[in-house]
């Protein structure tokens, strides 16, 4: 097991990092623990209360929380470099699969930029975006909410049946459904948070379990004896349709007023995703709560010492993550399907994890990642049409995530070393000046 996995990163280290370790540099790990003894779980992973700006976060945590290079040039350069590398690898894979890389890419782009596809891609990206934000909220605190999938499906089912059962005048029906979904998503996620605080259950385990339980509950409830509408002779089971006053129309009308004419139906709730992204950014970066959340993730002990209740933060973060997860199904439910059925999109919670990872947990990064993934997914059909197996799309997505993660981490380390080197040489220079002045 240590064979391939242990070798790979060390190769990358050599590949991406110049031998910058000058012997007079202090060791990286301020804690002084040998690397083997650094615990691998979030609560205790950063025992060093190093308050300095260049704190050493374990690499995997840095990746989860989207820490990256600090300089603006590198912030832009790193993803561009990563995308170029992944493009090259993808071309190679296409070649190996027996396809012509250039013409395959060409047909992907041609198809992906037709106006029909643009609408599909934006709709798909909206779902991915909400899902990734839900995941990113947890990541920012080093909480791995794998349960987003169960949270949004359960929320969508219950909100759909509630919305189908009551008819309210225009804005209230929609608001009822959306609020209900947020409450249910948050409540379901809170179970994992409470379990972690009260019993120390890892949220990774409990959310995976809760996904399975949610699937069971949905299967039980989505039955004509319970929440589903009676549709004789149908192979589908669905909740009753939302009343027409409780739906949200497409954005196409609004956009055509602006001179943008699109076919199909662009989700009316697409702006909601943008709002959620802005709120996410403001809360994380401009509020006391966001500060507490980031600190709890960076160093639970430091957070505790400065009066932040770790348990409270865990529960609140999980609930917020679940609240946003509850929204994932809303654009489709209120804007397209109007019911929860066997055809309701499933598995978005897992895609969200990857998209959040790719987007570095930053609202803008996630938006770009969501659009990229949506574009790749959209092109799966056209690739099959030009005789490239659809699984290539999964390979491409994996390649993109891997290269982005690796390149970011390498660039980040390289930048830290560079800073340390600069500081060291300045200190040394200062020392010389001082001694010379004393003479």
């Amino acid at each position, binding site marked *: 097991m240590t064979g391939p996995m242990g070798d790979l*990163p060390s190769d990358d280290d050599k590949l991406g990092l110049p031998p910058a370790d000058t012997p007079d540099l202090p060791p990286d790990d301020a804690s002084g623990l040998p690397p083997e003894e650094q615990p691998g779980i979030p609560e205790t992973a950063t025992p060093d209360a190093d308050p300095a700006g260049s704190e050493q976060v374990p690499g995997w945590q840095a990746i989860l929380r989207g820490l990256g290079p600090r300089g603006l040039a590198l912030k832009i350069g790193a993803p561009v470099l990563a995308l170029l590398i992944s493009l090259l690898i993808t071309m190679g894979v296409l070649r190996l699969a027996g396809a012509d890389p250039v013409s395959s890419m060409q047909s992907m782009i041609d198809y992906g930029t037709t106006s029909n596809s643009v609408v599909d891609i934006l709709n798909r990206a909206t779902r991915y975006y909400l899902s990734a934000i839900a995941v990113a909220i947890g990541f920012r605190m080093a909480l791995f909410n794998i349960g987003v999938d169960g949270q949004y499906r359960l929320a969508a089912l219950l909100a759909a049946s509630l919305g189908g059962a009551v008819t309210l005048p225009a804005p209230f029906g929609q608001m009822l459904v959306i609020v209900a979904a947020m409450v249910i998503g948050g409540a379901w996620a809170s179970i994992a948070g409470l379990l972690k605080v009260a019993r120390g259950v890892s949220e990774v385990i409990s959310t995976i379990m809760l996904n399975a339980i949610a699937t069971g509950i949905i299967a039980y409830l989505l039955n004509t004896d319970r929440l589903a509408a009676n549709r004789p002779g*149908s192979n589908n089971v669905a909740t009753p349709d939302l009343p027409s006053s409780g739906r949200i129309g497409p954005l196409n009308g609004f956009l055509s007023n602006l001179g943008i004419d699109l076919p199909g139906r662009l989700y009316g709730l697409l702006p909601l995703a943008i709002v959620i992204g802005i709120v996410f950014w403001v809360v994380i970066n401009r509020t006391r709560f966001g500060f507490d959340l980031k600190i709890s993730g960076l160093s639970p002990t430091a957070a505790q010492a400065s009066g932040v209740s770790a348990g409270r933060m865990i529960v609140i973060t999980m609930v917020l993550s679940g609240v946003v997860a509850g929204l994932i199904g809303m654009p489709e439910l209120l804007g397209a399907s109007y019911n929860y059925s066997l055809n309701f999109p499933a*598995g978005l919670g897992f895609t969200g994890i990857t998209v959040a990872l790719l987007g570095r947990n930053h609202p803008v990064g996630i938006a770009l990642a969501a659009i990229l993934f949506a574009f790749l997914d959209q092109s799966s059909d056209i690739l*099959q049409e030009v005789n490239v*197996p659809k699984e290539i799309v999964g390979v491409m*997505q994996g390649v993109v995530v*891997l290269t982005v*993660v690796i390149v970011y981490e390498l660039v980040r380390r390289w930048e830290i070393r560079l800073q340390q080197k600069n500081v060291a040489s300045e200190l040394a220079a200062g020392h010389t000046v001082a001694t010379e002045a004393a003479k």
Partner: protein
Amino acid sequence: MRRGLKITLVSVTGAALALNTAACGGKKSSSGDGGGDGKKSIKVGLAFDIGGRGDQSFNDSAAAGLDRVKKDLNVTTEEISAKPDEPDADKESRLRLLAGKGYKAIVGVGFAYTNAVVKVAKDFPNTKFLVVDADQCQVTGANVEGACFSEEQGSYLVGAAAALKSKTGTIGFIGGVNTPLIQKFEAGYAAGAKAAKPGIKILPAKYLTQPPNFDGFKNPALGNEAAKGQLDAGADVIYHAAGGAGIGVIKTVGGAGKWAIGVDSDQYNQPAVSAVKDHILTSMVKRVDTSVFDFVKGVSDGTFQAGIKKYDLSNDGVSYATTGGFVDDIKAKLDQYKADIVSGKIKVPTKPGA
């Protein structure tokens, strides 16, 4: 390099999750040779539901129809599979893509395509569409055909066969995924068994997974376990409606020397279970392949008819297999039931417990 290891682990986990959701299915999609169109050749597009070709079941049955089309008629074909996390809109785009590329006969495999086909068909009046398993057995449009199957009728006959052949007086049913479609199999099976032998004990139906987890149609290990459970409970005839997972059922039941009943195609002839084929009592055959073939043939020779086409016992759209000769001794009885169902004397329920 411990830290490096952790990075790799996280990255690999992330990528694995991405692949997990993105790369469902598994078989390379094949397609026509592209070139060599003769003058009368038409292009046929097939849009699969989740799983696609290679699911040993429903999709494969449609694929078999397409293969026959390719062999017998002068056509070029194309197949595109669905993704598990897609809404109806993506199915529409898929059909639109095929129609826009000049495919003149387009098949949507699975009830999930019903709405998408009806919608897209309006925009492409010169293209003919087929929905296999049309939802609620309804389609609209002058260029849309909906095929619907009476699975419960075929299941009724194999249920009767199970009851008549059981020595322990206990029989079982294993369904792939708990959906109304598979419940039709269960309902017909139970009704047929009770009709043939009123005192028969039918074990509670075992569904391998709940939607949206469709592993129950794919994972033979699940079928394996479920079959063991029902054998332990005393069943000596077990009917599966579990697609690829049913391979596990048949192997386990056959290995224990009891009777298995196959589904969708005549599984006696299926290479995957040839080792235990002498323990496949019969199979409930659902001619998805025929519906695809008939549709393409109709389009190519101009006899296409829009609207619903029912496939039931009366036109052998569903039937029971006799290969192996294990049901020869009760064939007269089964044919009597069949005649009664065709004439309407027996009404087969479509919901379990009815």
